[in-house]
């Protein structure tokens, strides 16, 4: 059961991190470099999901994707099933809830890049796209990494949204967090401790490897200062 939950959780966290990379980086880029007047409104909105209690956010998402809204009906018509209580639903909810943790550190890092380097890149004929890939992304990597670690860890730990949207179905939507939560709820502390310990050790190992890599081997990537 814990293996199943762990696999599911990792799949979820990796999926969510991947999606947050794909949507978070462009969003962070926009936040860092746009000169629109109303940018600050978007900045504020991006941070909003996390001020709601996760269960409540999950509840609203559940309602939004339910059969009584156009969105829900449209998705149902498209895929033949509802978003709720599926893995995709979990992904949606987690992405929404971890978005600020991913986007904000990335945007901060991007904005801190020396403007002269972006100028130099443009002067060498590089498109925005190339400048992004070759200059902004590598130099903003520490921020991207921070965003990823925070949202990855947060996805592992979050259970309010996941519980609400996923419905705690073992093998399908029961993540390790929910499992531990269940075990604590069942007052089965011994098992809960064991599960929590496994989760903590796993994450600790992953993080330690990541940070250790950054420090030692990964110099090429982000320790060029």
């Amino acid at each position, binding site marked *: 059961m814990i293996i199943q939950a762990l696999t599911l959780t990792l799949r979820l966290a990796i999926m969510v991190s991947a999606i947050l990379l794909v949507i978070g980086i462009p969003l962070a880029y926009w936040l860092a470099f746009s000169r629109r007047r109303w940018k600050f409104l978007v900045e504020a909105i991006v941070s909003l999901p996390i001020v709601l209690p996760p269960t409540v956010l999950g509840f609203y998402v*559940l309602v939004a994707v339910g059969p009584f809204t156009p969105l829900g009906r449209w998705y149902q018509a498209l895929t033949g099933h509802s978003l*709720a209580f599926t893995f995709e639903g979990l992904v949606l909810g987690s992405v929404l809830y971890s978005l600020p943790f991913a986007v904000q550190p990335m945007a901060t890092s991007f904005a801190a890049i020396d403007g002269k380097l972006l100028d130099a890149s443009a002067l060498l004929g590089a498109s925005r796209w190339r400048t992004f890939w070759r200059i902004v992304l590598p130099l903003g990597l520490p921020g991207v990494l921070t965003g990823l670690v925070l949202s990855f860890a947060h996805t592992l730990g979050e259970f309010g949204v996941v*519980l*609400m949207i996923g*419905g705690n*179905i073992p093998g399908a939507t029961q993540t390790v967090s929910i499992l531990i939560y*269940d075990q604590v*709820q069942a*007052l089965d502390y011994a098992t809960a401790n064991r599960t929590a310990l496994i989760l903590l050790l796993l994450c600790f190992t992953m993080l330690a490897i990541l940070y250790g890599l950054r420090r030692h081997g990964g110099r090429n990537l982000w320790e060029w200062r």
Partner: protein
Amino acid sequence: TQDITVAAASDLNYALKDLAARFEKKTGGKVTLSFGSSGNLYSQIQGGAPYDLFFSADVAYPQKLAVAGLVESSSLRTYAIGHLVLWVPNGSSLDPQRLEMNLLLQPSVQHIAIANPQHAPYGRAAMAALEHFGLKDKVASKLVFGENISQAAQFVQSGNAQAGLIALSLAVSPAMKDSGRYWELPADSYPELQQGVAVLSASKHKPAAKAFLDYVLSAEGATVLEQYGFRVPPGK
């Protein structure tokens, strides 16, 4: 035989696991259990959760679902009646059997844990009992509220609350049985805690769901439930 998914209130954790295991052994069908607070489960069923059977901690939720047509009204049953106990941890010097509800007035009792009366059935029962004994106002400032009855139990069990009004089913559970003492409140001191069950209208495995429901309601099921601190409604 088909596999079914059962949504159940957290206080059924031990009882249902036992029942499901016995049922699986007997019939070979697989029962997947998904526990949660009845309120959450209710919201989820409204959202179209793919459960076959819903064991609630009260009857109000399944009744509301029946009105909405989300569960089959014909399958709606009261499968058990919950009991409230006054529980103190082993380390406590207070004796619930002797002091009964007056225990709550002892100065050493700084916090009393109950489930949230706004939405948890056991919380509502606890408030009613406090009112019944005329303690409601005297202990109001000592109350702390768990999201559900399990959290209320954890408050006392960890020693942070010195006493709690919790479910008998938890008090006799393996986790708590040896860590504290309890006194069972008289049944007339709070409205009967009827726990309702129903088969979901959207279930794709209704025969199997009904089979499991029948098993829980059978004499054998009743014995198991009693064993875990529930009483089975009379006339069944």
